[in-house]
């Protein structure tokens, strides 16, 4: 599955590679007569007495009906010659393979750098119930080493990433196992607790059937006490194709809609109707919240999507003020007990409301229930609200550019040329619209995914 997928992608991306295009056309010209010949062979072998002309017409009609099954050359896809992605790329004596590969890699990275940059109002303070399928179907080995192990590993990464990007949000973890829903990790804002629990689950064997309804009911119960300024979300990773439910799941879905809980499902095997319905109902008719993964990297991408906070929409607006405390940090020569874990620690933070000591932030003060955060935690979410503009690829033009090195990392821009024509394949330069500095593709990805700052704009002396 994976190689053919990639092959298709690269088809779309690099049509302008001339040598390849020619080769492809030649390839098809060869293929067409071959398939026709085969058809005729088939007919001659089938001896049912009908005149061959009629038969041909029938065949035509049939092929019209099934036009979606037809391959590029007019015959059925399975009648075509096998096209391997590596056959498409040919190397003449003159063509430089490395430059072609380099431009392919760039094209792939470029896709990764594309993001939505519309500044939305987003629900920054989130509460999410991560629901994991730990039923028997998770022991299948279509993901390596098996679905269960991979899901847990990715879930750990997800928790890291989630708290990194949403420091004032909370997560709870529920697993579906043996027809029941188990709450394995309470709703809390401490990533380490969740990760410890996930590591424990890794050792468990997946078992029994999953029950979507039980899990949803439990998630609903967990999300009920969350205040109105938090978003309520459920993220389900669902590996099986069925759900064993005690009663009508549609009622549960209706109650989720009432509670304004939004569900997102990542399917591991095939599309399941009830999941689709669930996502559609709880997201105000938007079906894009149900996705089935294509391969392992796609799985990762889907989880990364869930890290970004959801835009606030009209129905689900939570414009409120939240009371929070900004504690001061203290250093002590002698250790004192903290109010949160009752452990002896040096220094910590004093709640401005009740002066009890907590050892880590962000947290809820165990004494007076005030949310305690640092201003840095707020700053961590700013890039969701004010996303950085995407850089535009510089046109090839005449092949002369103002700079030959990347502005931020000083890497020399590669010169990727088609050796035959001497034309540049890509300019490899990505320009910021505001400061007109050029960046290389790696910096473009780094700047947009990690840094969220344009080094060029920041080094301008004027605002």
């Amino acid at each position, binding site marked *: 599955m994976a190689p053919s997928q990639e092959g298709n992608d690269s088809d779309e991306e690099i049509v302008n590679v001339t040598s390849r295009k020619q080769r492809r056309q030649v390839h098809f010209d060869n293929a067409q007569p071959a398939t026709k010949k085969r058809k005729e062979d088939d007919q001659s072998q089938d001896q049912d007495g009908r005149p061959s002309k009629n038969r041909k017409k029938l065949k035509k009609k049939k092929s019209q009906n099934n036009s979606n099954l037809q391959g590029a050359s007019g015959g059925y896809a399975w009648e075509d010659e096998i096209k391997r992605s590596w056959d498409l790329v040919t190397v003449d004596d003159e063509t430089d393979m490395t430059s072609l590969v380099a431009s392919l890699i760039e094209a792939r990275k470029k896709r990764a750098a594309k993001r939505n940059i519309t500044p939305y*109002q*987003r*629900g*920054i*303070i989130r509460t999410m119930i991560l629901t994991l399928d730990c039923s028997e179907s998770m022991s299948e080995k279509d993901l390596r080493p098996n679905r269960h192990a991979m899901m847990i590993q990715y879930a750990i990464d997800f928790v890291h990433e989630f708290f*990194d990007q949403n420091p004032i949000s909370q997560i709870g973890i529920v697993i579906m196992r043996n027809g029941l829903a188990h709450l394995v990790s309470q709703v809390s804002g401490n990533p380490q607790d969740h990760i410890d629990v996930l590591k424990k689950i890794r050792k468990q064997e997946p078992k029994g059937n999953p029950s979507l309804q039980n899990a949803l009911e439990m998630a609903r119960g967990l999300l009920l006490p969350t205040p*109105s*300024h938090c978003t309520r979300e459920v993220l389900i990773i669902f590996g099986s194709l069925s759900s064993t439910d005690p009663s009508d799941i549609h009622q549960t879905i209706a109650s989720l809609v009432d509670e304004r809980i939004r569900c997102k499902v990542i399917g591991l095997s095939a599309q399941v109707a009830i999941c689709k319905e669930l996502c559609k109902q709880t997201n105000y008719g938007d079906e894009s919240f149900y996705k089935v993964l294509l391969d392992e990297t796609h799985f990762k991408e889907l989880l990364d999507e869930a890290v970004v906070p959801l835009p606030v929409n009209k129905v689900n*607006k*939570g*414009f*409120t*003020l*939240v*009371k*929070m*405390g*900004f504690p*001061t*940090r203290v*250093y002590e020569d002698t250790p004192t007990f903290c109010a949160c874990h009752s452990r002896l620690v040096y220094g910590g933070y004093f709640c*401005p*409301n009740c002066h009890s000591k907590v050892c880590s932030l962000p947290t809820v003060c165990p004494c007076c229930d*005030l949310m305690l955060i640092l*201003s*840095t935690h*707020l*700053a*961590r*979410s*700013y*890039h969701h*609200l*004010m996303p950085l503009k995407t850089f535009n690829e510089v046109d090839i033009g005449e092949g002369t550019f103002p*700079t*030959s*090195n990347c*502005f*931020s*990392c*000083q*890497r*020399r821009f590669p010169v990727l040329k088609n050796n035959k024509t001497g034309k540049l394949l890509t300019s490899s330069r990505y320009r910021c619209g505001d400061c007109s500095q050029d960046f290389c593709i*790696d*910096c473009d990805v*780094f*700047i947009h995914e*990690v*840094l*969220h*700052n*344009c*080094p*060029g704009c*920041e*080094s*301008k*002396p*004027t*605002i």
Partner: protein
Amino acid sequence: MDAIADPNFKHQGNKPGSVEESPSLLTVIVDITPQLWTEFDLKNGKKDSILDVLKALIVFLNAHLAFNTSNQVALIAAHSQGIKYLYPKNKADDDEISSKNEKEDRDLFIISKNMYRRFRNVDETLVEELYMLFKEEEQSIGKVTQKSTLAGGISAALAYTDRITREMETISLKSRIMVLTCGSDKGNRDEVFQYIPIMNCIFSATKIKCPIDVVKIGGSKESTFLQQTTDATNGIYLHVTSTDGLLQYLSTAMFIDPSLRQIIVKPNKGSVDFRTSCYLTGKVVAVGYICSVCLCVLSIIPPGNVCPACDSEFDERVIAKLKKKPVVPRLTKRKSANHVSKK
């Protein structure tokens, strides 16, 4: 310096049983805005203190190179009109051969021909580029500078670090960033515009596990954002009042290996100012209100129940709940009042 290249020292490096340290990359961002340094000079009654700093810095970079043969350095200057890589040099400039001829009669006398090659490579380029940069600065007198370019320098340094670590994946290169800046007396006048960029730098530095050390020369002892930077990235904050013996400071405080930082007492064991100020009143906030949409901090409930920053209207019921004051039972009050009147 030349002594290090002496063959007599060679056998010491290859002592049997000595642990091979992993190489590291040191990226230095130096703020050479002339205005700041002139202010510093005037205050201290000294002249050309920036030269002292740069001299110390060159020795410091050489020392870093001397630790390990695979160590690398990079130097970025944040000047009044932008940022510039002083080392590694922009390769395109190599073509200008004309500059090479001039090189002879410039201040290259401080670099002897017999110097260890790796030192010489760095030193020559640095001196050369600095010379060019100061010439440029001379011409840009009178141009407007509204904010410091330090954040841009740190951003570029992070991008450079990211690239080098990716290229050197096989040898597990460690990296750190050092910021050398001069404090001005005017305080945090331009720091306001830097808050978000510096914060973003902090987060990406923690992500790529690259500590940021800060050396601040002169000015006020505190530097809110830079202190937060070192605190969050496990770096070292060092405030130096004068440039005398700067090299000593640099070599004692700035060569602590990141893995040893848990054990060694660092110079920045002070408190860091994490306070936030209110968007409306500008006062420091201990307990405040936060708009759930734009995350702006308010010390009071804004008039009209509308967020002053993003114009989103707040839910009235929630506001009413926040405005509710704790109820004090009247009975106790009256009793105490009676007591007072009796007496």
